[in-house]
């Protein structure tokens, strides 16, 4: 799909389709599931995704068009080998179950439960942390990362934070203006034309960039960004397992 913005992609849920769609009644869907299990499941499968003996009902245009049985009731009477004597109320319950499956599929880009990322080797992760990864140059298991394994409810969030950390201190910038004036401070904003900063005493300064203006940015996350081209997935899973063990 095309994203509104890269960062919003992961949280989008399926919202296409007609606005006048059937609203799923949870109680009816539960009843419908029971009826479905009794009469339909053998051919159409436990999740209505079809089997060798019956088509996928989530991908069925008839099911998608249906509103409260207006398509399904006549179809069950028309199609050979189907349960023609279900009451209309029973078929409506089935439609709620099927619509529930459709809605779940349309939102299938969101995990029902966090993925298990604790597949690595903690000892190998410790070795990487202290060795090839160079993590110990800035971090310590008994220092800033003490108890890191307790800080995240789900290890997948720990994995994301390890790979894409938030800055614990802002980037800094040193600007030397054309007249030789040198100013340092926290970087506020930079583009090709301007750079702005806040000095240690809280003063906001903005400079127009040019050939005679020297700008040096120090991003504390730069090393983390470089490592994205270095990590193997096994390194990542080992380090996550190690970090998770720091309780």
């Amino acid at each position, binding site marked *: 799909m095309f994203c509104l913005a890269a960062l919003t992609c*992961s949280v989008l849920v399926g919202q296409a389709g007609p606005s*006048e769609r059937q609203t799923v009644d949870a109680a009816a869907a539960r009843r419908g599931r029971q009826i479905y299990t009794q009469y339909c499941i053998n051919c159409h499968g436990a999740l209505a995704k079809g089997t060798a003996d019956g088509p996928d009902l989530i991908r069925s245009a008839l099911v998608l068009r249906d509103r409260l049985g207006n398509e399904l009731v006549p179809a069950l009477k028309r199609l050979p080998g189907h349960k023609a004597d279900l009451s209309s109320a029973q078929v409506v319950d089935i439609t709620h179950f099927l619509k529930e499956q459709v809605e779940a599929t349309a939102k299938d*880009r969101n995990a029902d439960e966090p993925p298990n990322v604790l597949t690595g080797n903690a000892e190998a992760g410790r070795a990487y942390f202290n060795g090839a990864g160079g993590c110990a140059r800035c971090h310590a298991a008994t220092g800033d990362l003490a108890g890191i394994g307790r800080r995240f409810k789900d290890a997948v969030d720990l994995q994301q934070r390890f*790979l894409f950390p938030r800055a614990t201190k802002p980037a800094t910038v040193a600007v030397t203006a054309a007249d030789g004036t040198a100013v340092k401070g926290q970087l506020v904003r930079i583009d090709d034309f301007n750079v702005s900063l806040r000095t240690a005493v809280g003063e906001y300064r903005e400079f127009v960039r040019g050939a005679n203006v020297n700008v040096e940015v120090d991003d504390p996350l730069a090393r983390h960004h470089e490592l994205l081209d270095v990590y193997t997935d096994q390194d990542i899973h080992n380090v996550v397992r190690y970090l998770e063990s720091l309780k």
Partner: protein
Amino acid sequence: MRTLLFTLCAAGLFGQTDWPTYNGDYSGRRYSALDKINQSTINSLALAWVYRANPGREPQAGGGNNAPVIKGTPIEVNGVLYVTIPDHAWAVDARSGREIWHYAWKSKGGWHIGNRGAAAWHDTLYFETPDCNLVALNMADGKERWHKSICDLEQFYYASVAPIVVKDHVITGVSGDDLDIPGYIESHNARTGDLEWRWYAHPEPGTPEAKTWPSLEAMMHGGGMTWVPSTYDASLNLIYFGTGNPQPVIAGQGRMGSNLYTECIIALNPDSGKLAWYFQPSPHDTHDWDAVQTPVLFDGEIGGKPRKLLAQASRNGWFFVLDRATGERLVSSEFVKTNWALGVDAKGQPIPNPAKQPQKDGALVTPNQGGAINWPSPSFDPDTGLFYANAARAWSVYYLYDDGDKPEGWGGNDRSGYSEAMLQAIDYHTGQVRWSHKWPGNGGGVRSGLLSTAGKLLFAGDPNSNFVALDPSSGAPLWHAGLHASLTNGPITYELDGAQYVVVAAGDSLYGFAMRVK
């Protein structure tokens, strides 16, 4: 009224002063021969007007109804701009930015992610609506002439693409990837709107290409949406467009194979819808890397031979140059560094690394789902011979949620992380990046298209809400204007009464810059 046919009749026609199609002409180069705005005059370029699109407060049905954002490229014909957002079209005076008329469509649903623009033919304007309609309007007053259904809202299709008119065919594309539905492209009669042909993004059952799917069921529900307008070569009588991701999007284990014709560059006869050739930038995609980026047409030399060429900077980070008469691949190269391919096959198509497909415990992949580039248009400058892409290096972790035999929908997703943005200038002869201008700051992906001109200028948006003109031969920034938001479409240019204009959108506003040479 001057006929549109004249301005449309050739790609990059010398003397063209309008911007009558999505890409300005049929070639997709987004290059203008206008040169009043040039490296010598650029610092006199001034804001002439701002037009703010106001769709009104009446709520529309369907998802994604957020604040109005102009993601479409306006067209400019005879001094009038035609600009769209989902469900809305406006005519705006191209000299003054004043509204002439506003047309509002009453929606029945669909995903309101964006509208890429309108097409014009004689005195009729065409645009697509999220609830699956092609609407034809009278260009003079915005009155509706007719509308035709182009997709089934019930199956969760929707429509966002800018139509393109080729001869008297209105070529439409479709969108949607919540459910497992096939993508297609249609031709409608420009006068009546009647359907002329539909080409599905899957092979005919029983053909060799159909063997790229494990089953008929998987193939018929295999996706391949047509998100971006076509380009057209009149001499070859072929239209060119890309197809989107296969379905299910992330969990690919139920559709093993290369999954033709998803993730393909496609050449079709516009009169019959008959396939001429295909090339697949992302075989068996599992990262949502729609290969729909504009197939850009230009003529050049490769290996000392003159060629009719087609180039695409694809969302997966790879740049391809093809012979557009035959589909023969001439160049395959990364335009940003990626980590997902093992190399290229005999056809020049990247070979996906199975280890970098989505995993239960996550795989670190670059580019991310947003891609090394997305829908915003690239540009090709015949003066420099360089192909420009407003690109990103972005990383995310791809997770597989559904590892069953028959996942549906998505079955996984990525979680985004760090990204950096840069403008890449690519030598089409080799695919090598001639120069790269990294946009300062951590701006992530840039959603700005590009424009190059005979004024030796390359216009772009940066991640910091600047509209920037650069030297196309070096990437040096020459001029900028700070807007209230980052660019949300591709810049266009046109000339009226001897003045050259450049128009861009940021959020709900069009900014018109003018160079009035006395």
